[in-house]
């Protein structure tokens, strides 16, 4: 098998090097990707405030610790479905409520495609964004190294695609850095070198250079570019997928359907990812990120808008992929949570425990997972922050095992024993 794969990819490069990559070859290389299970990790950078994303309105301390920031408890009847991202939370189970900005998630919750794991986080106590992101992305609390998702890729089997690991970002984030190839696709609009002669000479330079960093950069870039070009020229691969949501008579803008354009940059990135998945580009691991969760002040005007974009992007992605969501699991994470008590400026400072969301066709959703540690002073981490009751690696381990079929995770999360599974996936 390795020989065939080597032939296909090697010769595609060689031919491109001579400036005449034939379409059939690019297409062959693409179809080699076949249908794959895909795990999508979405990082919320800046420490998202779990307590106001899925609000524990059933905890009687919630309103006390957040006198001005606490979200309104859900209405008996959810009549407010057109009211945008502000307003009372949407009841999930009588104790927790979705922020109104996450309204597009409600349908996914009802369809049992969305699970929420409360009080997740890292055992490391750092409140530095940058350390905590590094630790979480490495999957090794307190230490940094290659990315957990890169290590989870394992050795390529048979016909691995050059787009096996994709970051929808201008650079490869730590989560995907490491031994295995990962490609960063930022702005794909102009991702092309149209002059074949120039392309072939540049490609030669980057293949020959003794500079290992540049050699790898060039290899990733040229291969990914070629594959995307092949796909772009093949319209059959780009048709819209059947959505799980019925289309209303008024079209997406009038029937409250989630939409990519309302999802901002994340929406554009996930739309591109959906295109790759629908084209059977062989994506196994994908990464996307959203900045701007560091709400030290005026949180209640900023968070709703951000959450609205976030949920539109993700729900539109689920809608776009339709049946293919059976092969896709999305997991969201943030480096830590925010202080339980609101600070002096209508915001929250750096805290500890937060939450993770897991979405997909195979998810045992419609349920809050994890043990709620409570908001009483003595229940808090260092007397101020939400305690962590579920290590983020428990969630990730379960998805790597159940979805990507990685049974041995000793190299992915060295020294970590995940213990009993939460049961996030339908078996």
């Amino acid at each position: 098998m390795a020989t065939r794969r080597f032939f296909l990819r090697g010769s595609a490069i060689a031919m491109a090097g001579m400036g005449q990559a034939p379409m059939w070859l690019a297409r062959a290389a693409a179809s080699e990707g076949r249908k794959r299970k895909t795990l999508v990790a979405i990082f919320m950078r800046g420490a998202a405030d779990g307590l106001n994303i899925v609000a524990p309105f059933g905890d009687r301390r919630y309103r006390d610790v957040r006198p001005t920031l606490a979200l309104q408890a859900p209405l008996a009847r959810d009549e407010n479905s057109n009211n945008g991202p502000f307003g009372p939370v949407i009841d999930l189970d009588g104790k927790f409520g979705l922020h109104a900005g996450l309204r597009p998630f409600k349908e996914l919750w009802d369809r049992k495609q969305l699970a929420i794991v409360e009080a997740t986080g890292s055992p490391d106590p750092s409140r530095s964004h940058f350390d905590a992101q590094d630790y979480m992305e490495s999957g090794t609390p307190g230490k940094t190294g290659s990315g957990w998702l890169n290590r989870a890729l394992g050795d390529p089997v048979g016909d691995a695609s050059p787009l096996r690991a994709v970051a929808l970002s201008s650079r490869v984030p730590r989560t995907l850095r490491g031994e295995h190839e990962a490609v960063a696709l930022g702005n794909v609009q102009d991702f092309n070198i149209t002059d074949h002669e120039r392309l072939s000479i540049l490609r030669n330079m980057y293949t020959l250079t003794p500079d290992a960093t540049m050699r790898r950069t060039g290899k990733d870039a040229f291969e990914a570019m070629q594959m995307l070009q092949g796909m772009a020229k093949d319209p059959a691969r780009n048709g819209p997928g059947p959505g799980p949501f019925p289309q209303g008579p008024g079209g997406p803008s009038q029937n409250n359907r989630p939409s990519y354009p309302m999802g901002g940059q994340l929406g554009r990135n996930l739309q591109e990812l959906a295109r790759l998945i629908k084209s059977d580009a062989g994506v196994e691991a994908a990464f996307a990120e959203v900045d701007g969760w560091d709400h030290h002040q005026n949180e209640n005007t900023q968070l709703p808008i951000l959450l609205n974009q976030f949920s539109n992007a993700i729900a539109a992605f689920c809608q776009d992929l339709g049946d293919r969501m059976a092969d896709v699991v999305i997991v969201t994470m943030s480096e830590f949570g925010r202080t339980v008590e609101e600070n002096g400026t209508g915001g929250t400072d750096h805290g500890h425990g937060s939450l993770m969301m897991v979405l997909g066709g195979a998810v045992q959703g419609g349920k809050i997972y994890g043990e709620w540690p409570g908001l009483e002073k003595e229940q808090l981490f260092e007397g101020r922050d939400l305690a962590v009751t579920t290590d983020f690696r428990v969630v990730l381990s379960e998805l790597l095992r159940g979805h990507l079929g990685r049974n041995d995770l000793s190299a992915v999360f060295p020294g970590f024993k995940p213990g009993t599974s939460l049961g996030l996936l339908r078996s």
Partner: protein
Amino acid sequence: MKRVYSIALAVMVYPHSGHAADPFEQKLSPERQISQALNRLTFGPRPDDIEEVRRSGLSKWMEKQLRPNQIVENPVLEQRLQRLESLSMPVSDVVSKYSPDPNMGMMMTIENPMAAINKLPQNVRIKVINGTAEERTAVLDAMDPELRTKVLAGLPDNVAEYTPKYKDEAVKARKAMQEERSALLRKRNPPLQDLLRPEDMAAVRSGDKDRLMAIIERLDPTKRPDVVAMLPPKSQAFFPEYRREAQMRRTPQLAVSQDLKEARMYRAVYSNRQLEEVLVDYWFNHFNVDATKNVAMTVNLGHVLIGSYERDAIRPRVLGHFKDLLLATARHPAMLYYLDNWESAAPDSFNVGPFAPRRGVLNGVPNSIIPNGLQRLAHGLNENYGREVMELHTLGVKGGYTQADVIAVARCFTGWTVRSPENPEFVFAPFMHDFGEKTLLGHKIAAGGGEQDGLQAIDILAHHPSTAKFISLGLARHFVAEHPPQALVDRMAQTFMKTDGDLRAVMETMFRSPEFFSEGAWDARVKSPLEMAASTIRAMGGELTDAWSTVQRVAEMGQPLYAKIEPTGYPDVAETWLGATAAIARMNFAAAVAAGEVPGVSVDASRWQGLDQASIARSLLGHEASPQTLEALATGLAGKNPSPAVVASLVLGSPDFERR
């Protein structure tokens, strides 16, 4: 066959790869030392720079770069900057001239629909929003019909729903208000189809320069800026004369940060004080603020302050004492807003006085005007600046501070705030200050200090040994290698401690070190997009007549200028810049410059007419190209008699040019 041959060649040329000797102990040849200095102290060598440095003597040239005020500035640069008028204006003028008109323009779309309700007397307002249906109906009955319509238009859905008598009227009033607003907005900011003939729309979408120019020519001159404003940024490049006016009409605050972005490009390309420009770029990133951050009561104020932040806080101090630089950033309104210190207050301080926030969330509506005393808003501490000033600006994350120190620093800085959004200047507000005793990193700060507490915190942080190490490491990483030798960092830190943080002395220690001119430092850094763009134009000896397009390309390569959200700034390591799409964007930018296809950049490759490929490459790089790059050029261009511009486009896209 050819591949095999070139690999064999590579092995022959690098027979000692894997050699055990420490590359930081291997000295560069005198030729390479000049190239090294130009690559680190400037935004890349121009065609004649090597010769010029050789003539004046390398160490003398470096000495001079360390004293920028003794260097006569390039008149071309001064001429370019003259057009960017916000650069030299006092902050108060920038604010008054470039703040968006709150009554018109884009602001209207987000104007609070509850304005009429918020203006009602409190007892009436409470009945309207929180009263029973009967109370609400009675109050509405008693209102002047005109006012009632306005109130109904702003009534939230769920409230209107429970007011049977006025339910339908509320729906109608809201619809009428929305229509009125969109009509006004459309008049103020007409969409393209209101300005152009239908047959012109396709030409506009095509982005074709000649067709676009023809359409704009035909238009009434007063309409031109409106049309230009609606064009995609790539097409706006063709109309520098209308672009700015267009921006002033719609989003004046963006004109200020646009001035600054363009100035950054002009300075990088043209300034004779290159080291100063490199350092302004470096220190701005170290003390990053993001122009796009929205502060509740100061929509996009970052845009109008960020120019002054660079000009008044950073630029004058990049070769001064670190403590002064730290203090200048700490007191600047751009930083006070960005890391929230402006509203951080002692927990029990009053919400009164000229500094009290006037806007906030009221009845679920953001950005409402808060009547005095109605709602507690800014009423306590915010840890944001307190943490980042230690983690990112001074000690470094491993610098030995605790959560208690974060709170202590935040308390010291309470009351360091901004007078007002209209008059953004530093002011100390005693009623916000926490006058209690603090303990910071083992130092006691006595109770009753006031503004002095913040100065003391600055003093403690600026003189901490961790700061000396952290600042030295950052500079050594930027100027020497991503992983600089510890011995060098230690020597720089010693200089820092001995000289009270004199940054010029620290730079001198670094520039005079053997490590700086060693094989270990050679080509050790991957260029940032800004460095890539500026060095490309400089290498070509090109002219930058309009920086608009280049600024866009730098953003496309992954570095939107002045818009990094996180306070870390852009991580100063190669992997920040080397994604697949970014790598191709870099190669394409190089080719576009060489071919003269970037609007606003003109190049003339005829100076290389008749030279062979290796000589052209040497001239562009400032040193010999690698044998592999030359081999790929020779093979690919064999028998094709390429023009110098074609060779240049390939050299500038080569792995060799990616590094500095």
